[in-house]
């Protein structure tokens, strides 16, 4: 199915344009139900087998070769069902060698990780704003200078835990912020996805 056709089909499914065939009796939508999903059984002494992080050293087909920060080599399968994030939900062709990533999925018997979700270059910074320019926030991240680029149409702000908005004009120089963004590899620059601030 093409991307457009797929979206059209999913849209109509969500809004009730298609008949439901499963007729499965789902449980209640009570909060207890949300907690009833099977819990992970992990040995606290071992690293989580279903998680990988590192820098991409090569891409072959739909497989990512990743060198972890502890020098572990990971092989990560990206499938149609894998969610890819790089500043925003994106597609496989946006991923480049040299990017950093965090991946979550299922470790297969051959040692590869079938990824459910991959977050590329994602960073989470607590910082304060030292200066502002057009489309740029200069950040002080525990003494390190970080240049935060505002991406029009993508960058969002969350003020005082209210729903995210695209209006950044309530940000103030000198104030503390938390930034979720996409690192530009081997620089001190990030593209900002969401900035959390008090207003």
């Amino acid at each position, binding site marked *: 199915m093409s991307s457009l056709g797929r979206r059209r089909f999913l*849209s109509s499914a969500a809004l009730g344009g298609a008949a439901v065939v499963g007729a499965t009796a789902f449980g209640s939508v009570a909060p207890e139900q949300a907690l009833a999903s099977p819990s992970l059984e992990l040995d606290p002494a071992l690293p989580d087998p279903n998680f990988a992080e590192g820098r991409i050293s090569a891409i072959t087909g739909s497989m990512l070769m990743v060198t972890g920060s502890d020098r572990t080599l990971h092989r990560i399968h990206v499938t149609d069902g894998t*969610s890819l994030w790089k500043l925003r939900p994106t597609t496989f062709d946006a991923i480049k060698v040299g990017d950093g990533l965090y991946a979550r999925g299922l470790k297969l018997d051959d040692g590869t990780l079938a990824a459910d*979700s991959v977050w590329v270059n994602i960073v989470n910074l607590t910082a304060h704003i030292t200066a502002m320019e057009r489309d740029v926030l200069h950040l002080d991240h525990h003494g390190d200078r970080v240049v935060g680029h505002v991406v029009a149409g993508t960058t969002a702000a969350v003020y005082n835990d209210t729903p995210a908005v695209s209006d950044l004009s309530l940000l103030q120089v000198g104030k503390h912020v938390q930034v979720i963004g996409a690192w530009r590899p081997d620089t001190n620059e990030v593209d900002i996805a969401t900035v959390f601030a008090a207003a």
Partner: protein
Amino acid sequence: MLLSSQVFVVAIVLAWTGGVKLFGPAPGLAARRTALDRLVGKGRELTAYRAVGVVELLIAAALALPPVEFAEGLAATALALGFVAYLVYARRVRPESDCGCMGGKGGPIGWRSLSRACLLVLASAMAAGAGQEAASPLVVLAGLAVFVALSAELDRYWLLPLRRLRVRLSHPLAGLPVRVPLAAGVEQVERSPAYRAVAGLLRSDVRDTWTEGEWRFVSYSARYQDRAATVVFAVPTDRFVPEEVQAALVDESTEETLWRFAPTASVGLA
């Protein structure tokens, strides 16, 4: 006049830095932020930090009180050269350390602290060559202003207010295109009854998102009865009402809708 003014510039700067080291807030913390422990041994950094402060104050007092002597300027120059050497050393052994020059909060050692130390060497050398002529308050003030400009520790007293004023006059980030960001849609999804019903089936983060009219659609990969499925949420974009979020569980290979959540209807309708 230029040379004799430097006597006061150096005296004031040293009195300032020595005073901060001896009487400033949290000297223990400030000392720990420096790389002094690498130089003098662990546990002795606060003593060393204070000792530097005492030396600074002594030289400052000697410079400020008449008579002006060559030896005082020489001592100040030697101290300033020591600072430069320490900064180069600290930058090498612990790049993230604070210079500790004016108490803490100066940030890592960079070009500003290095050029400030070099400037102090120059000013001290000039002070050593000073005669008995009178100092000019204007030159002293100008010299001090340069030191203030190079001190990251003092930025919050003058640079930050200036930048705040500039942002208040015209905010550089005002006037961006207004649209409802994805994060607002995802938050609505995560607070919705529809999400509570299917959260246990979701395997991925947001896989795709698009908008049609007043609806934003957000799709996730899911696993249902051992088969791959897709959950798609429809979120209103013009209002924040998690209760109105709709959802469907879909098998994309067969194009079947397995389950749908509509806010008013009950779940699992055939």
